């Protein structure tokens, strides 16, 4: 990236609120239903119908707002945003303009181990639009086909301050926001199902300039890495325009994930003139203290706080704690494993973190599985680490057991029994194997006695081979040296 320019990014996230029904009617929000089966006179905009607000949608939005440290506006009103597009049967979208439910929040992100605070401008409630099909497979249609199942599904639009200074910070913000929302379970955040979508405002300005440059709005990024790629491309494009003496124009651009470029969307509509006004079909909302306090009382431990607890309670490094809290399912897995191991023995929290972040996550990644789909149950990973810690098996054998656990879903004790992998810690037996190894290696013994201490490694290897890896390695080391010194 060019050092002459500073990048300024603000993000708008639309996250689907996790309700059973739509925001203004009783239709289901089920994603997998047949097209146009979750529709009714209200969400298809028939004349004379009246919308009625879903209380749960308000509760979940307020919960999200509290988790993001926002001020809750007790009084809130709905507004109509007018535009014509066939995905919107009413020709207006019910949204909020003045007096959204929440304003002035913030969220911590971490990039390269640096913590940065990103401001949240506002969170408002609005309804989703329908889905339009322009083609069926490879066949281009000469018309558009509308499915209104999604029309009227509640969304919370979370608008950030223009506080991000690089595409990496934007990706970190989205990751942190998604993680937080998953912790408090106010949205599924499933990006493939469009339940967590992001538009980005991006501009550049010469370093040191106070005023913002002219921004472009980017749309159609369907993954967090897509957002990062699109922003990285757009920064480069804007720098090139300016460097070649051109001017950035304010416009909406769409990300093409195949060509990996952004394209201008030439809109025929007069530059966004939505003519917002308060929706006369919906009376204002007035949230009382009880409503807000009840929600506050039910906010679970948030990622930042949980991270601090992992560091204090289990002595994890900041790095490991960050990896583990990055996904609610992962941190739940970790704590289940730790609890199961602590029933057997002590000091297992750190080794469990290592097994989890290096061995298990690596294998899951290769197998394209999520932590929830892990063939190794959390309790079993805890038991495995407890067995190492109690010297029942060596770390080396543990890797074999772990491999088997991953492939067979079995618990470690069963595998150890079936395969006869219990560690040999009987002193006499180890002495016997060590003596055999020494007797078979006169040359190496001579080297050792001649002062080459590293030669002992080869004899250790032979002992491990003879015991099929089961001899307790600490004991082998000690006994071998004792025998050699005789």
């Amino acid at each position: 990236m060019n050092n002459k320019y500073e990048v300024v990014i603000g993000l708008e996230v639309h996250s689907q609120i996790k309700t059973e029904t739509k925001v203004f009617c009783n239709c289901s929000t089920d994603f997998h239903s047949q097209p146009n089966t979750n529709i009714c006179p209200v969400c298809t905009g028939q004349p004379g119908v009246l919308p009625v607000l879903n209380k749960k949608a308000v509760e979940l939005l307020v919960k999200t707002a509290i988790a993001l440290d926002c001020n809750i506006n007790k009084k809130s009103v709905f507004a109509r945003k007018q535009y014509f597009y066939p995905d919107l049967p009413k020709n207006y979208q019910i949204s909020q303009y003045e007096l959204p439910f929440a304003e002035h929040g913030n969220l911590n992100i971490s990039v390269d181990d640096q913590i940065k605070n990103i401001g949240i401008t506002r969170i408002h409630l609005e309804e989703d639009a329908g889905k339009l099909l322009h083609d069926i497979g490879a066949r281009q249609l000469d018309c558009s086909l509308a499915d209104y199942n999604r029309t009227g599904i509640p969304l919370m639009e979370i608008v950030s301050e223009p506080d991000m200074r690089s595409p990496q910070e934007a990706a970190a913000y989205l990751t942190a926001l998604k993680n937080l929302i998953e912790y408090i379970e106010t949205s599924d955040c499933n990006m493939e199902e469009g339940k967590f979508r992001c538009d980005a405002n991006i501009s550049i300005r010469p370093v040191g300039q106070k005023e913002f440059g002219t921004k472009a709005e980017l749309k159609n990024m369907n993954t967090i890495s897509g957002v990062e790629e699109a922003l990285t491309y757009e920064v480069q494009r804007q720098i090139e325009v300016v460097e070649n003496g051109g001017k950035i124009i304010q416009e909406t651009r769409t990300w093409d994930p195949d060509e990996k470029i952004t394209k201008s969307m030439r809109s025929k509509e007069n530059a966004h003139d939505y003519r917002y006004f308060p929706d006369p079909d919906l009376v204002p909302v007035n949230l009382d203290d009880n409503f807000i306090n009840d929600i506050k009382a039910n906010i679970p431990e948030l990622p930042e706080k949980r991270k601090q607890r992992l560091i204090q309670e289990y002595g994890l490094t900041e790095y490991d704690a960050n990896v583990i809290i990055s996904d609610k399912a992962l941190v739940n897995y970790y704590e289940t494993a730790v609890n199961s191991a602590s029933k057997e023995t002590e000091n297992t929290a750190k080794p469990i973190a290592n097994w989890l972040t290096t061995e298990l996550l690596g294998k899951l990644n290769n197998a394209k599985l999520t932590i929830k789909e892990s063939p190794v149950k959390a309790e079993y990973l805890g038991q495995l680490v407890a067995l190492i810690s109690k010297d029942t098996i060596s770390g080396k054998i543990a890797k074999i057991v772990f491999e088997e656990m991953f492939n067979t879903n079995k618990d470690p004790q069963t595998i150890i029994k079936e395969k006869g992998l219990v560690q040999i810690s009987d002193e006499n037996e180890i002495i016997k194997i060590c003596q055999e190894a020494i007797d078979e290696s006169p040359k190496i013994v001579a080297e050792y006695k001649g002062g080459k201490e590293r030669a002992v490694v080869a004899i250790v290897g032979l002992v491990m081979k003879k015991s099929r890896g089961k001899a307790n390695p600490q004991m082998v080391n000690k006994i071998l040296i004792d025998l050699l010194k005789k």
Partner: protein
Amino acid sequence: MEISKKDVDYVASLARLEFSEKDKESLTQQLDSILDYIEKIKEVDTSKIAPTSHGATGQNVWREDTVVKSSQSTIDALFKNAPDKEGDFFKVKKVMDTEE
């Protein structure tokens, strides 16, 4: 406040409405007199009155999050109200918002 014919053209295009030149003239006058009236209302001192967003006095009209499925006959009626259909879909004129 002075409404021009240009303003009427703009508002009409936003609302997807078409008017004859004669109608446009009378609309220009009508809108102008409506705005004059609002100018007059604005003379009232409202500095101590909270803004009103709704004519009704109620608040917090909301419902529980319980699914009620539309009957097949309701869904059929919704399709009948639409200009066209194809299979399970409402069929509409093609609108693309990107151009190469």
